[in-house]
């Protein structure tokens, strides 16, 4: 049983109303009602505990005041090349009922935890990207603006055999709402044989917002799914980015960047499961903390019994700009097949003092020198981003935060 409070105005009636307004099929209404029923028995997502310390306190979230199910408003702009369909979730239910029905819940069980169930019961927005066999789709953009106290979004990406797509998603706050807010973002990717997906996500919500994001991919034979996860906004973010390498020779990259200031709290997690042969994973996360910001990172590389010939790498680096900040990290290896080459590394430290000294000696003012080093620190992450627009956005946000 979770410690979380059920929102007062949350009932089967509410859920029916949401579903009816959108003229949803029966199976989805059932899935929503089942998730609602399950809330009572589900726990919040696991957080790391060490003797006497709990790294993130999700129990403190007061869903009663954060969630206003019937007043969800968003303004989302979706663009795409020809040949690929980028639809709202509701449009997709009409256009591709079978695709949506089989993809929904296929990688994220709605009843996985309290927050996924809450999302399944209440989501009102989301996008479906469906790329048919052999189609190359570049530069799909999804720019979402959250205009209400709470917003629940569910996105599906389905790529058929040998299809490819690059997707950029950005999330910002629009209209002002007094007090705390809650944003929930679930993304499921079903990557078919030999297909390619890059999914970039940039979260820059205002700092009264609590945000939960779970993104998971089912990566098929010869397929590649590359994630880029940028977190700058929100009061507290819990973000899980996960790839299940289920097909032989499947590959994934999970690239993360965060930059916290004031009393922001980022709980960012990257996980990969090697479930088939000849699979490869590379997890790269870079974060900067200023003021009293706090970061929590868990990286998991899980190599299954049957995952012969696995390559799996993980790096996490955190830069601390302030003495008041705190960085917690736990990179984990779980290896059950010896035919594996796996490694991970993690570092925490401050800006290199010798670099700083050199730059200052070349007449660069100290503050500017530090900022240049921070910008340089993010370069390995920026280099991974294929969508130029996204790279520019992230660079601009980092530069703005340094001012």
């Amino acid at each position, binding site marked *: 049983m979770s410690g979380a409070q059920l929102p007062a105005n949350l009932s089967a009636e509410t859920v029916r109303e949401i579903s009816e307004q959108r003229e949803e099929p029966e199976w989805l209404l059932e899935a929503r009602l089942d998730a609602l029923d399950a809330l009572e028995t589900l726990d919040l997502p696991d957080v790391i505990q060490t003797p006497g310390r709990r790294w993130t306190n999700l129990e403190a979230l007061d869903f009663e005041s954060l969630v206003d199910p019937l007043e969800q408003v968003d303004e989302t702009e979706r663009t795409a090349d020809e040949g690929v369909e980028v639809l709202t979730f509701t449009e997709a239910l009409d256009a591709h009922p079978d695709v949506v029905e089989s993809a929904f819940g296929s990688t994220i069980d709605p009843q996985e935890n309290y927050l996924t169930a809450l999302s399944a019961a209440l989501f009102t927005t989301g996008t479906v990207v469906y790329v048919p066999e052999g189609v190359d789709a570049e530069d799909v953009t999804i720019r979402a603006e959250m205009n209400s106290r709470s917003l629940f979004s569910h996105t599906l990406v389905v790529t058929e055999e040998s299809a490819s797509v690059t997707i950029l998603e950005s999330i910002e706050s629009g209209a002002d709402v007094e007090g705390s807010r809650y944003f929930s973002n679930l993304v499921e990717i079903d990557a078919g044989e030999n297909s390619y997906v890059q999914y970039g996500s940039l979260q820059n919500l205002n700092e009264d917002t609590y945000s939960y994001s779970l993104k998971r991919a089912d990566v098929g034979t010869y397929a590649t799914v590359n994630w880029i996860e940028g977190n700058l906004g929100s009061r507290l973010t819990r973000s899980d980015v996960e790839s299940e390498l289920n097909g032989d020779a499947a590959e994934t990259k999970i690239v993360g960047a965060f930059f916290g200031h004031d009393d922001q709290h980022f709980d960012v997690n990257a996980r990969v499961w090697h479930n088939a042969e000849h699979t490869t994973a590379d997890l790269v996360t870079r974060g900067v903390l200023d003021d009293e910001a706090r970061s929590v990172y868990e990286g998991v590389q899980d190599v299954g019994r049957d995952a012969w010939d696995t390559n799996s790498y993980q790096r996490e680096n955190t830069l601390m700009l302030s003495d008041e900040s705190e960085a917690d*990290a736990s990179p*984990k*290896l*779980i290896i059950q097949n010896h035919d594996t080459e796996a*490694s991970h*590394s993690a570092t*925490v*430290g401050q800006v290199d003092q010798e670099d700083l000294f050199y730059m200052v000696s070349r007449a660069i003012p100290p503050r500017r020198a530090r900022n240049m080093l921070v910008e340089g620190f993010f370069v390995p992450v920026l280099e991974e981003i294929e969508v130029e627009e996204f790279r520019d956005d992230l660079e601009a946000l980092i530069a703005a935060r340094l001012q």
Partner: protein
Amino acid sequence: MSSEQDHLKETDTEARFDFKKEESSAFQTEKGLTEETVRVISEDKDEPEWMLNRRLRALKQFQKMPMPTDWPGQPDLSEVDIAEIVPYIRPDVDVRAGVDDWTELPDEIKDTFDKLGIPEAEKNALSGVGAQYESEVVYQNMQERWEEKGVIFMNMDKAVQEHPDIVREHFMTKCVPPSDNKFAALHGAVWSGGSFVYVPEDVTVEMPVQAYFRMNSEGMGQFEHTLIVAEDGAEVHYIEGCSAPKYSAFNLHSGGVEVFVGEDAHVQYSTVQNWSKNTYNLNTKRAIVEAGGRMEWISGSMGSKATMLYPSTVLKGPGASDNHITIAFAGEGQNIDTGAKVYHNAPNTKSTIESKSISKDGGRTNYRGLVHIADGASGSSTSVECDALMFDNESTSDTMPYMEINESKVDVAHEATVGKIGDEDVFYLQSRGLDDDDAKQMIVSGFIEPITEELPIEYAVELNRLVELEMEGSLG
């Protein structure tokens, strides 16, 4: 060559460690754990009231704490039923607190330690030796020259009687309180035997002191307590060895180790653990290090069915430092869950952790570690390196480090790798005339060499031999 040395040359692990002696005791408690058991133990030892009270408080703590079951990937402890354990067995030895001459021991006990090579080692390489059989220390001796300098090395039970002030201040108070974990609480209630080491200011004990722990009886629990106090500028190296024959019922070893490292003092604590593969080894070991002091933990975990052991160091004073060296080897049916914990609570503190693990034939090793750097511990640095070698896809190798960094002026690095024995390496060695087994053995020896070269030579030899024995078990 003496017969003892011949015995040491034997390469059969069964013969060397797995011999059983008839169970003969002067006194033993009933199975299980009640307040009555605790009172009986305390009374049999003729303990002062304060120690009895500490035991009873620890018992209450034990009863109200849950079993640890929710650690990710932890060993299964469901078989560990305290009601099935005999917590206290006093062997039939005339002199309480141990004799100081091996020949005064009953034959079967003397023979046990002869076979383990302890008296031989004492002659050659050690400043002092304690030997524990079941729940009591049966032999304790230290060279006179250390006694003259005020060094104390005695059985823990005797220390309670003879050095009540030091023991009362340090025993399970600020270092390992019974509330630390369920098995520390159990230990606090039924502890028996172990060593007390006191090294006065600026005294350096040049050769190591060693304690050897042997469980002979089936279904017993051994709960020895080790307390080491090194005053400012003192230096000592303590070596601990352990083994037991294998029985079908489980045995439990739940030791407690507390080390106090004074300013600029240096303590090294080395363990080669070779419990039988029916033993649950659930220990709590911790050191508190004052300014400029240095603590070193060297642990080889070869035996046991399941081990949960994370030697901890609290770097309390500025400039204090810590070094952990850990080797774990898990074969069939073994789950070795071990690692290190370091708390950097003062500026300019330093820690290094090196871990090597080997898993084969379905064994599981896990490195589980925590490094905590407190706010204000500026100028501190920590480096953690974990390497794992796997033999087959029945085995499991996990690495689970946790880092909590509350200070920006620090240098924190963690690295880990996991890999298999390289086919190419094996092929190369075979082409040079080695057979498959020898080639693999040589690769494993090379893999752990960075650690064995840090060990005193006797220990490096012992550890290498144990690894060879483990390898022989199922290769070929």
